[in-house]
Structures are given as C-alpha cells and as structure tokens.
C-alpha cells in the first residue's frame, strides 16, 4: 500500500471511531432527556414530593426520598474521599514518600480502580453483617467513598504529576518547606484536581451496585444516618422492574434528573477548572 493511502485510510478509521463514540453518547443523552423529559416536565413536582405509602406499587407521590438519599450519601462520601485522595496523591507525588513506595501504592490503586463496584458493595455488606449492624445511609456513604477514592486519587495523582517540576523548584528555591511546596503544587494542579473530584462525584452519584446492599433500598424518606436510604440509580432499577406502568415511567423521570445532574456537574467542573487554569504555569495557553 502506498504511504499516502495508508495515511488516508487511518484518517478515515480514526474519524469513524470518534464519530461512533460521539453518536452513541449523543443518542444515550438525547433518548434519556427526551423520554425522561416527557414524564418529568409534565409533572416536575415528582422529584420534590415524598413517596406515598404504596409508591413502588402504584406510583403515588414522588421520589424525593431518592433525590435526598443521593445527596446525603454521595455528598459526604465525596468530601471524605476527596480529603483522603488529595492527601494520598500529595503524599505519593511530593517528597514525603520514596519512589518505590509510590509505585507499590499506585499498583494497589490500579487494582482498586479496576475492582467492580459490586465487590465494594459485598465487602461493606460483609462488614455490616460482621458487626451486627443493619444497612443504612452511613454504610452507603462508606461504600461510595471506597468506590470514589481510587478514581479521585488517580486523577489527582495525574494532575500533580503533570504540574511542572519548576513550580516545586521555584518554591523550594524561595525557602519553602516541604508542606508549603506541596500546597503550591496542589494549587498549580488545581484544574486537574477539580476535574477529578467532580468526576468522582459524578461516578458516585451514578453508581447503583455499591449502595444496592449497603444503604438499605428504602422506599421511605431518609430518617437519619443509621436509617435505611436509597439513591437515584437504585430507585431507577426498582422502578424499571415495577409491574405498574406509571412507576416504570417514573424511572425515565428519575433518569432525567440524574443525567441533568451529571451533565451539570461536568459543566461546573469545566468552569471551575478554566477559572484556575489562568493561574497555572503556562497560563491559559496551556
């Protein structure tokens, strides 16, 4: 084959692959927005109404319990794993840890990253049984935090790694301590770190497997940290399995809420990252 034909062929292949991915994504989002929007927008109150006593059977009331459950579970979980992830990544990337130790920890993080979320769910369930507790909001938080931790750590680690070494050098050169230099490196990597945190949040809010056996799959409003709760993805599964057509249609409405939330988060991360990118060495050009 002629080298220019080869080049053209690869060009088509690459464009085709990119178009396929974009098309699939656009289709998923459009179908969800369209079908979900049809249900949700005719009666937006269902997202803000507590479920009736026979909600899963007849669809009376709304799914506020799952919206709140998602916020109460994923919010605290994100904060916990964010603190852990940034600390770990700073430790690995700064001069606190040896290169060899970093490599070992990174290997474990890769394993954690690749672990299916259902395994975390089962793990936390084992703990719940072992300590004789019952499934509740707090265990949902723990399971989601474990799930988010490797995602956020890897993103943060990557961001810190790509922050230029010269920032470190400049900071040390001014007589900064290791801690002050680590803070400076975090600031330089902030756009990437924010993207990672929000990505972790988005993944957490969309995950069903981790909370399935840990949060309690409640059909009532969350009553406290040690009471059962549910999240939107689990609810969507339950709704979609319902015999009642009204409840099934609510699955689309809940999907609509979920996808709008995730898209909103991604937009927010872009805006925040852009804001801090101006300060990053290399400025907005990089």
């Amino acid at each position, binding site marked *: 084959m002629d080298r220019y034909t080869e080049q053209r062929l690869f060009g088509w292949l690459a464009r085709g692959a990119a178009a396929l991915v974009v098309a699939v994504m656009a289709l998923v989002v459009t179908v969800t927005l369209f079908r979900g929007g049809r249900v949700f927008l005719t009666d937006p109150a269902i997202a803000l109404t507590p479920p009736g006593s026979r909600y899963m059977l007849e669809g009376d009331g709304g799914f506020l319990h799952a919206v709140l459950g998602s916020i109460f579970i994923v919010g605290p979980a994100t904060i916990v794993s964010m603190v852990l992830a940034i600390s770990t990544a700073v430790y690995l990337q700064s001069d606190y840890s*040896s290169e060899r130790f970093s490599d070992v920890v990174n290997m474990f993080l890769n394993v954690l990253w690749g672990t299916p979320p259902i395994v975390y769910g089962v793990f936390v369930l084992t703990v719940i049984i072992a300590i004789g507790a019952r499934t509740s909001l707090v265990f949902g938080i723990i399971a989601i935090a474990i799930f988010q931790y490797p995602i956020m750590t890897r993103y943060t680690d990557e961001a810190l790694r790509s922050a230029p070494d010269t920032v470190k050098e400049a900071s040390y*050169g*001014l007589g900064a301590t290791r801690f002050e230099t680590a803070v400076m490196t975090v*600031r330089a990597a902030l756009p990437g770190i924010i993207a990672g945190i929000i990505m972790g949040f988005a993944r957490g809010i969309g995950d069903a497997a981790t909370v399935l056996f840990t949060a309690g799959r409640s059909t009532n409003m969350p009553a406290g940290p040690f009471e059962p709760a549910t999240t939107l993805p689990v609810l969507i599964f339950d709704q979609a399995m319902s015999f009642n057509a009204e409840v099934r249609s609510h699955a689309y409405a809940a999907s609509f809420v979920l996808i709008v939330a995730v898209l909103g988060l991604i937009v927010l991360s872009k805006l925040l990252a852009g804001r*801090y990118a101006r300060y990053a*060495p290399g*400025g*907005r050009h990089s």
Partner: protein
Amino acid sequence: MTDAALTTENLAVTYTGSRNVEALNGVSIEFPENQLTAIIGPSGCGKSTLLKSLNRLHEIKPNVEISGDVCLGQQSIYDTDEPTPEIRKRIGYVPQTPTSLPLSIYENVAYGLKIHGDYDSQAELDEKVERYLRKVNLWDEVEDRLEMPGAELSTGQIQRLCLARSLAIEPEVLLCDEVTSALDPISAEQVEETLADLKTEYTIVMVTHSMNQAKRLADEVVFLYLGDVVETNDARSFFESPENERTKAFVAGHTATDYETDTAESTDTTATAPPPIDR
C-alpha cells in the same frame, strides 16, 4: 579582591541512580562579595549541579550524594542545625525556566515574605512588593494589574517576576541558572540590564551558556569542564589572556561561533564545545 561571600571546599556531587555519574569532582571556588561570578562551560559539565549544590536545591531530587562543603561567609551550609529552608532563604535561586507560581503577580512577590513572615503590616508588604518590582524594572508594566495571574505575563516578564520574587526575601547571595536562555533577545537584554544593576548590591552566581553574556556581565569567571574547575579568574584576564590551554580553545571557539548569535542564547553548545585535549 573583596571578601568571599560564598566558598566551596572540595565539593563533589555524584548522581547515584541506575549508574553512578560523577557530576562534580571536588571543586574549590570562592565567590567574591557583591560581584557577579559567571560559571561557564559546555553542556553537561556540571554547571547547574554546582549551582544547585550551593543552596542544597539538588536535595529535592532523589539519588544525589555530596561530599565536601559550601560555606556562606564562615558558616557551613551542610554541617549545620539550621533548617534547609532557612539556608535557601539566605541563598536565593532563580530557575532557568521562567515559572510563575500559581498566584497573582502581587502574591508571587509576596509569597516568600509571607512564608518567612518578613513583614509587620500590609502596608510594609505592599511597599516591599512595589520596591522589588521596581528593582527588576517590572513595576511600570504591571502596577495596574497586580491581581492578574502571574502566568499571564510574557515569558520575559515572568523571568523578571522570578527575580523580584527571589530578591524580596533579601538573600545574601543570588544564584541564577541560565536565566536568559528561555527568553527572546529583547527580554534577555532586559533581564541582563536588571542583573547589571543588581550586581553591585548582591553577590550573584550566574550559570550561562553564552560567552558574550559572561563577557558583558561578569566580574569573575569560573570555567568548568567535565566536573572540574579548569580556570577561574577576573573576567578581563579570563577573556583577554586565558592561562589554560583548554580555556583558550573554549574562549576562541566559542566567541567565534557565538558572536553572530549573540543574544539568541539557545545556540547548540555541543557545536561550540572545546576540541578534545589530552589531559
């Protein structure tokens, strides 16, 4: 000659990574006070290593071994209880790559003052930031946009910002690592002018690739080759009547090719490295 502000005694540095590389083989140099000493030599001769070992900055990388000593005045910077950051405060460093800290222009200059607590009031901080930005001839260009990210300045401006940042903590010695090599000719000239203004007040040690820059700025010159000091002399004698054969070859070879690309510092130094001479 004035008193030496900084001296190295038999300073040797070895990189102990996958294989041992001796970067400096025990050099003893005196850097005179309030003068600019240029360290010159071909790429890979240990210039940057020498510079970084003068304020222990090489310690931020793993796998470096050091022997010998560096003294600031009479005090050893290695055999001391003083924490390393305090030493780096006294011996400032300006990096080769112009790097703004991820802060505003104002905060870049104020950063060192803040971490060392070198100010009593906001007014004093403001005054110092202005003073050092003026000192590097940057104030007029940035006075109305101090809150702008430092990273949005031009490369040449960032390098002067780096200088101001380092000067603000009032170091006794200033180390400059090829500070003009990443700059365009006009910015390089501005930085050079700034250095020329500063050298009467500060002890400056400057690594440079450009022989002409050394000629223009230096009071003293140290010629480093493969980790050894070949010759050290005052700039005039060094360039006009070099004593060592290797220096002669280097000076001659370098100025001949360096001449036309005077301010374009990025000339390929391997092309201008001295011809091999039997030792």
